[in-house]
C-alpha cells in the first residue's frame, strides 16, 4: 500500500510534487544509498532503451529527481526496483510522445527516389570475421538490433536478458499480464535472432566476445 502511494507520488510530474523540503542528513544519506544501489541499473536500462547517451542521461536524471522529491514518502528499506524501473519505462514513453517525428526505418527497405528505387549497401557483417567479433562492433550491432524492436518489446528484452529480471517481476514493473511478458519476449527474441544471425552462429560455435 505504502509502496503504491510512493509510486504514485513518484509517477506524478515533477511540478505536481511540491518543491522538496530541506532534508535531514539522515534522509539525504538514504537518498545517496538509493542512488548507489540503483543509478547504474537505471542508466543502463535508459541507455539500452534510447540507444544514446544524451537521452539516457536525461531519463535517469529525471527518474532520480522524482525519487528525490518523493523521498519522504518512500519507506526506508522498501524495494524500489519495481517502480523505479517503471518510472524509466514511463519516462521513455513520454520521450517518444514528445518526439513523434522519429521514425524507425528498415535498413533493408529500398529508398524511393525520383530516379527509381535505391537499395542501401550495408557492410556484410559476416564478411570480415576479424572486425565483426570485436567487442565494440558487436555492442553496436546489438544496440542497433534493439532499436529495431518496438518500445514494448525492447523494454521486456532489456529487463529480462540484459538486467536479468524474472517474468513475474517484469510483469509487475510494466503492469502487464504475465502472458504478455512471455509473448513479447518470444517475439523480441525472434527478431533479434534474425538481426544478429552471424553473431548467434559464432556464439554457437563457442566464440566468446
Amino acid at each position: 500500500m505504502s509502496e503504491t502511494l510512493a509510486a504514485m507520488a513518484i509517477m506524478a510530474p515533477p511540478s505536481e510534487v511540491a518543491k522538496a523540503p530541506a532534508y535531514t542528513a539522515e534522509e539525504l544519506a538514504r537518498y545517496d544509498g538509493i542512488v548507489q544501489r540503483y543509478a547504474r541499473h537505471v542508466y543502463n536500462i535508459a541507455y539500452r532503451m534510447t540507444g544514446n547517451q544524451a537521452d539516457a542521461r536525461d531519463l535517469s536524471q529525471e527518474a532520480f529527481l522524482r525519487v528525490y522529491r518523493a523521498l519522504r514518502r518512500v519507506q526506508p528499506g522498501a524495494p524500489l526496483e519495481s517502480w523505479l524501473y517503471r518510472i524509466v519505462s514511463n519516462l521513455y514513453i513520454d520521450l517518444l510522445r514528445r518526439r513523434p517525428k522519429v521514425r524507425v526505418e528498415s535498413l533493408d527497405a529500398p529508398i524511393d527516389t525520383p530516379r527509381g528505387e535505391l537499395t542501401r549497401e550495408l557492410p556484410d557483417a559476416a564478411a570480415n570475421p576479424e572486425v565483426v567479433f570485436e567487442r565494440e562492433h558487436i555492442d553496436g550491432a546489438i544496440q542497433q538490433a534493439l532499436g529495431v524492436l518496438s518500445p514494448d518489446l525492447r523494454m521486456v528484452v532489456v529487463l529480462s536478458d540484459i538486467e536479468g529480471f524474472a517474468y513475474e517481476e517484469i510483469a509487475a514493473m510494466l503492469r502487464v499480464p504475465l502472458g504478455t511478458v512471455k509473448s513479447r519476449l518470444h517475439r523480441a527474441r525472434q527478431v533479434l535472432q534474425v538481426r544478429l544471425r552471424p553473431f548467434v552462429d559464432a556464439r554457437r560455435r563457442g566464440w566468446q566476445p
Partner: protein
Amino acid sequence: MNHHRAGRLLSAYLDSELTAAETRAVHAHLLDCAACREAYENLRAGRELLAGLPAAEPPAEVWAAIHNPELRASSAEAEGAPWMSAVRAILVRFAPRRITVRRPAWALAAILVVLALAALPLVKGTVDRLHATEIGVDLYVHDHAMQMGTAPLVDRAYVGLVAGDAELVLAGETPRPVGDGAR
C-alpha cells in the same frame, strides 16, 4: 505437445519460466524434433549475447546531477523557451497561492481563448453598428449608431450583456424613473 506450441514455449523454457508439466512436455519434444533443438540453441546463443553486453556506465556529469537533484531542478526550470518561463512567472505572481502553474503553454492558451470570447461581441457589435450607419435612414438612428460604432463600450446593450444589469445607468446620463420602459 505439437511442434507449433513447443516452438512458442521455447523462449520461456529457456528462462525456466514454464510449469513443471510444460517443461517436461517441451523437453520431450526437443528430444524428438531437430528443428526445435536448432531454434532452442539459437535462442540460447542470442540470450547469451545480450547478457554479455557490458553495463553502460553513467558519465561523471550524470552522477553529479543525480547526487544533487536540486541543482538540476533549478537549471531545468531555467531551460525551455524564455516566453514560457515568463508566462509561468506572471501566472505565479498573479495566481492565488497554492495554485501551481503546471502547463504555462496551456494556461496562456486558456487566457487567450477567454479574451477572444470577451472581445467577440465587441468586435462584431462594432462592425454591425458601422454597417448600420451606411443604410440608416433615420437621422437619430444614424447619429446613435455612429456614436456607438466609435465608442462601443458605452452601448447599453453591450454593457448590459457584460455587466448583466438591465437598469444600468451610464455616467453622465440622467437616471430614468423605474418602469419608464413600460410606457
